[in-house]
């Protein structure tokens, strides 16, 4: 594990290290078939550092290694995506930079070790520090885009923004490919509490793959899920007025043998399975022990994490938690962080622990990031008075479960967290690894209404950068 913290300089030595690691990580067949390529790599790198050919070879080596390793893994069944809308600072959280001074650290100059030697976090994350063996950090995530919508599109689709196609998000794609497999009652793609709004998650896949937004608040006495749990209507009244509807629904019942009407009526029965039947129990958090609810944190985010676990337990393929409260801290940065980080820490740490204890983490991918990081240097001047701005050059992503090993750090940012220092990871590398672990072919064609050829990922023809799948974390 320690070798992942070793400098990965573009030199013969580190190339050999990759070679060793690759050979050690995969079966003998791999070593035999790829030895030649890798040998060539080691040789070429000394004469022509950073050449395009070398980068392409490196990417191919990563891709191949990842594909080999993925063969031994169970497929991802569910995904929990925690989206930190607005962009969370990496310096202040999961890529701490001790000793960079007040201009970079601001008031967060304390750091804590974790239960994994060599991994350090900001002292704002004591609970996650105890679970570091369950997650890995990618500290060299980069796309260089500083606009909310375009960066969010990049991080959630892996496609180039501003192209003429509006691609679906990873959640919609995942749901699309799980449509045969998933036989549950709940919507297959759920977002708590509201969809992002400015970014169309379903893209051209259409409304069937639009996420179901729960609304309500799981931290309230009753989690009033939009359309499922309704304030002020008792079960008794629900049942009574349903009977009234049966009595007046002459056309629906009278022509129920007409296929379209039968389908509409069936869909209503289905909705009632959620309103009055077993479906809604998933949203009833009072079924959980009070002690566990406390551990998740008695706030909206904490209880969203708990609700997400219950949904995953019920088989829901994709759950997005849009962190309540944004991270777009141009001003009032430090106060906002002080308030939100402890909630994120508690909720996420407990979620990982809980999934692990129930044996769900192996097949459940949890990933957490915003659309970008924030400027490493604090803007102390007015009107920001201690703020951080959009920053897409480098930031950190947390991944756990679903085939990813825990307790590792991939890549490195430079001294102040301003540039990628080692092993860049692009959106297409990240999402490509997710799809790999989910058994989704990234070259598969998605159905476009006009018959336009659109693939799950298409970095090459879109001219997007890619540095290879994340074999180091598998």
């Amino acid at each position, binding site marked *: 594990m320690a070798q992942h913290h070793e400098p990965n300089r573009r030199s013969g030595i580190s190339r050999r290290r990759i070679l060793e690691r690759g050979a050690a990580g995969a079966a003998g067949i791999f070593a035999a078939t790829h030895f030649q390529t890798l040998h060539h790599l080691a040789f070429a790198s000394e004469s022509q550092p950073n050449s395009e050919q070398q980068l392409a070879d490196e990417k191919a080596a990563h891709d191949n290694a990842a594909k080999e390793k993925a063969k031994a893994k169970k497929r991802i069944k569910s995904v929990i995506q925690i989206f930190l809308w607005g962009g969370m600072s990496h310096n202040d959280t999961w890529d701490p930079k001790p000793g960079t001074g007040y201009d970079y650290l601001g008031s967060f100059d304390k750091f804590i070790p974790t239960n994994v030697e060599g991994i350090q976090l900001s002292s704002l994350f004591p609970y996650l520090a105890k679970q570091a063996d369950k997650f890995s950090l990618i500290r060299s995530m980069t796309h260089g885009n500083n606009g909310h919508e375009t960066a969010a599109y990049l991080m959630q689709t892996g496609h180039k923004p501003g192209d*003429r196609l*509006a691609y679906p998000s990873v959640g919609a794609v995942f749901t699309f490919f799980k449509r045969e497999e*998933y*036989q*549950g*009652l*709940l*919507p297959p793609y759920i977002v708590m509490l509201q969809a992002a*709004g*400015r970014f169309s998650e379903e893209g*051209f896949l*259409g*409304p*069937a793959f*639009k996420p179901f937004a729960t609304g309500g608040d799981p931290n309230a006495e009753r989690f009033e899920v*939009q*359309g499922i749990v*309704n*304030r002020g*209507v008792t079960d*008794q*009244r629900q049942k*009574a*007025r349903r009977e*009234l*509807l*049966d*009595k*007046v*629904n*002459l*056309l*629906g*019942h*009278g*022509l*129920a*043998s*007409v*296929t*379209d*009407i039968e*389908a*509409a*009526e*069936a*869909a*209503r*029965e*289905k*909705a009632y*399975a*959620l309103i009055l*039947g*077993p479906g809604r129990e998933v949203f009833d958090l009072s*079924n959980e022990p009070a*002690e566990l609810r406390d551990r998740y944190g008695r706030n909206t985010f904490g209880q969203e994490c708990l609700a997400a676990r219950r949904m995953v337990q019920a088989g829901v393929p994709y759950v997005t938690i849009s962190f309540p409260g944004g991270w777009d801290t141009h001003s009032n940065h430090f106060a906002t962080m002080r308030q939100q980080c402890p909630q994120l820490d508690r909720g996420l740490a407990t979620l990982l622990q809980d999934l692990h204890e129930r044996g769900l983490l192996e097949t459940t991918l949890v990933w957490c990031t915003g659309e970008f990081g924030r400027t490493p240097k604090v803007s102390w001047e007015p009107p920001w008075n201690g703020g951080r701005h959009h920053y897409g050059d480098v930031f950190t992503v947390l991944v756990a479960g679903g085939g990813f090993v825990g307790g590792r750090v991939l890549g490195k940012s430079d001294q102040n967290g301003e540039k990628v220092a080692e092993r860049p990871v692009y959106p297409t590398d990240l999402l490509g690894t997710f799809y790999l672990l989910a058994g989704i072919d990234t070259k598969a064609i998605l159905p476009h*209404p*006009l*018959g336009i050829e659109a693939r799950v990922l298409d970095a090459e023809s879109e001219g997007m950068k890619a540095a290879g799948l994340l074999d180091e974390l598998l």
Partner: protein
Amino acid sequence: MTNGRVTWWTAKILVSTCLIALISNVLPIRGEEPAAPPDELAQAKAAYEAAVQAAREAEAALVPLREAMQKADVALAAASKTANEKRGRANEAKGLAGEQGVQELKRAEENLTAAEQELAAAREAKPPLDQALAEARAAAQPLQDAYNAAEKAAREAEAAAKAAADAANKHEIAAKQAADRANALRRAADAAQTSLRRLQQLQQNFQKQRDLAVAQLTQLEAEKKPLDEALAAANNQLTAANEAAAQAEKAAQEAEQSAKQIAEDATKSEDEKKQAATAAQEKRKAAEEAKAALNQAQAAQRESQKQVDAFSPKLARPTQQKSMAESTLANLAKQLEAASTAAQTAEAAAGQAAQEADEKRKRADAIQAAAKAEPAADANVPQDIRDAAKELVELQATALRTAEEAAAKRKAANEAKAALAPAEQALDAAASKASAAAQRLSQAEARHQAAINELEDLKKRIAEAKQTYEANEKAAQEAEALVPPLKQEADQRRAEYMAARKVADEKAAIVDHARLQFYRLSASRRIARLMESPEPPTPTNHIDEIVFAKLHSLGIQPVLCSDAVFVRRAYLDIIGQLPSAEEARAFIESPDKNKRTALVDRLLNDTRHADYWAMRWSDILKVKAEFPVKLWPNAAQAYHRWIWESLAQNKPYDRFARELLTSSGSNFRVGSVNCYRAIPNRTPEGIASGVALALMGTRIDFWPEQRRATLSPFFSQIGFKPTSEWKEEIVFWDPLRSNTAPGSTAAGCDSVAAAVTATNSIPQALAEPLAENSGQEVSFPDGSKTVIPPDRDPREVFADWLIRPENPWFAKAIVNRVWAWAMGRGIIHEPDDIRDDNPPANPDLLAYLEKELTTHGYDLKYLKRLIFTSTTYQLSPIPHYQSPEGMVNFASYMMRRVEAEVLADALDQITASSDLYTSAVPEPFTYIPKDMRAVVIADGSISSSFLTLFGRSARATGMENERINELASPQWLYLLNSGQIQLKLQTSPKLRALVAAGGSNKEITERLYLTILSRLPTDEEVQAMEDYIKLGVAKGQDAWSDLAWALMNSLEFLLRH
């Protein structure tokens, strides 16, 4: 849904204009209802009630099981937590007790060994260094002593030399001291003189001042003297006048007294009396005169006094100056006296001192001269000088000698010091080495001690850890042992609960099945009576003749819809709105035989018809400000306005199409130019594809390559050019592809050339010869050929070809589209998929409609009227046939969910509420006035979550199927149970008013039915509401709001029918 498992996906079947598949049971035609056994319904009802009872019991049985399960869960969680904690502690302790302890012990022992070695080495190194230090010290000592002695001797000699030198110089020194003293006294005397002179100067100044003041005083007093004299004279005169006046007064009084006495004295004659009176009068006159003189004297005296008084201040200043100067002078005189004395004394002292100094100097010089004289001084030199000279010579010799001695001794001392230096350095080096060795030794000792301590401590800790570990491990194992039985218990309870749950779910499924059986049976017996008219359908126009002939050949007998169904249908289809309760009632109750045609005519002339059909056209033409069309808000509004006006004015369709194809100008000002801008792919191929979809109803992406390519040349000369206004864009004919040339914004060759001349810059394309543009030979998709002349916009050439009655696509596409919008399905399905292998269901019908349109000047309203007034449009929604041919031949009205916008407006209409429509981009956000209907929103970017959920067109492709009129679980969840719908119903002022209008329950029920379903309730429905009120679950307004809820969730509300 009653068989198989219900999942999220099973409900995702599209409810729209898609296929209605085979119908399992043929529905009876009205009047031919099969006489079902009367007990069938009763049986279904009994089965339903029994199932409900069974389900209720199963549900009740669940409660204790659930509680037991939760209890077991809690116990398990607590035990697991304890076990986890203990395990955690054991693992922590295990650290030192296990391998880690061994490792650390090893490390500590290694530490100690290393420290011991270090200590030994330090101990060994120290003694030789100490010895070296002692030797160095011994070597340095005698040298130090020698140096000390030499230094002392040198210093003594130097002191002696100095004393001797002083003695030799004593005369010289005395002379010099005397000179110094004389100089000092001279300076004091000079200072005294200076001081004296300054005082004298002051004295002179003040004397001058005093003299000046005295002179002024003298002059002023001279001026004052006459005034004083005048005053004295005036005083004298006054005194005299006073006396004179007093005497005159006295005389006058006496005379008056006397005159009075005489007058009273009878003895006196009148003359006497008269004389006396005259005398008195004279005296009085004299007195008065004297008094006047007195007054004059007084005035003169006052005047004089005034003058004297006025003079006095003039005297004050010189007087004061004089007195001040005099007092200063007195003072100065005293000072001068003292200063004078002091100066004299100082002068005397200085003189004396100078004399003494001079003498001493002379003497010293004489002694010096005598001492120097060779041979000895002559006899003229006094004896004492000669003695002194002799003494001086001796003293100088002594001084020279002692100086030489001192120098010799200093040299000896320096040599001793030089000899000492290397020994000292050696000593320092030895000392520092010895001290370092000592320090190393003490450090090594400390480290050694620390290593010993650490080892001991570690051993202790390991022993403790072993002990703790064993205890913790034992505790952990004990705690862990408690978990499995609890887990087993919890699993068992869960299994029991799940089993019971399954039973309850099964019972619930039986209930659902029985419930549906019952209500379906019940409803199917009543539906026809409600929806259908007993009148047999007769053909109204030629459409009906064609359609009915076809139906006849299929063996289908069509049925007319009821008036209630028709009024709702016509409103929804023509103006996209529900009829009001009053409108519905009036229509239903009207005896007019021609009322359906009259209603169609009225609605087609309503501007709301333009609103509604403009919305549909906006889908096709992609009126949207933002992604992916990106018209920009102003342009979207301009485009929509152009569409709306075209429809409102019933613009002939050929003109409508030509304007779309050939307009040039600003996107903000000429709405129709946005036709090309709304096509995201602005290549000639992309534009050809978009134009063909919209105006030819065909998808050229599926055409053979060669035919597809024919269209591109017509759209290869369209220019798009920005202006200075933000996001304004000019669309124009740009044959030279010169849209990079500045200023070239107008259409046509000439203006481009003019712009080039005006700006004096040559755009890229002009480098090509103009001749290349001339006479392009092209072919059309129908195979015909033409030449595009160089002076014609190719778009116009295309329009000329397209807009002709005989064009294979143009008229066909529009009549089919209008038919589809009216009837719910195209004669060619889908309406934008015209191709050879997708033939029309009824070619005669299509041909007839094409002919009607082209022969009536492309009058769309005529066409719509033809369709909406046909009997075919008035057929029942109930399909009484088995063949799928029936549906595609319009044997019954196509039921389909109302569009998102229409549904939103309908919900607002029945509740009198409103929705918020906004666009999130571009900022600032766009908001639409609250009372604006969703149907009239121009811009597809302005939306709400409701419109999105209910499948409003994304306006990205211009295809008909972009609008998704789905009725699946997400839509149902919203309609059945969302907070928004609940709020709309509960706070609706309209529902409140309908109830508050009073009357029997039946009357209120009627009002709600007319408002929401545009019909009157049946007796059974009135009874159902009576029963609901009696049930008492919802009371008062809540009960009526539940009825409204049930009606708006019925398919009769949600589907056009």
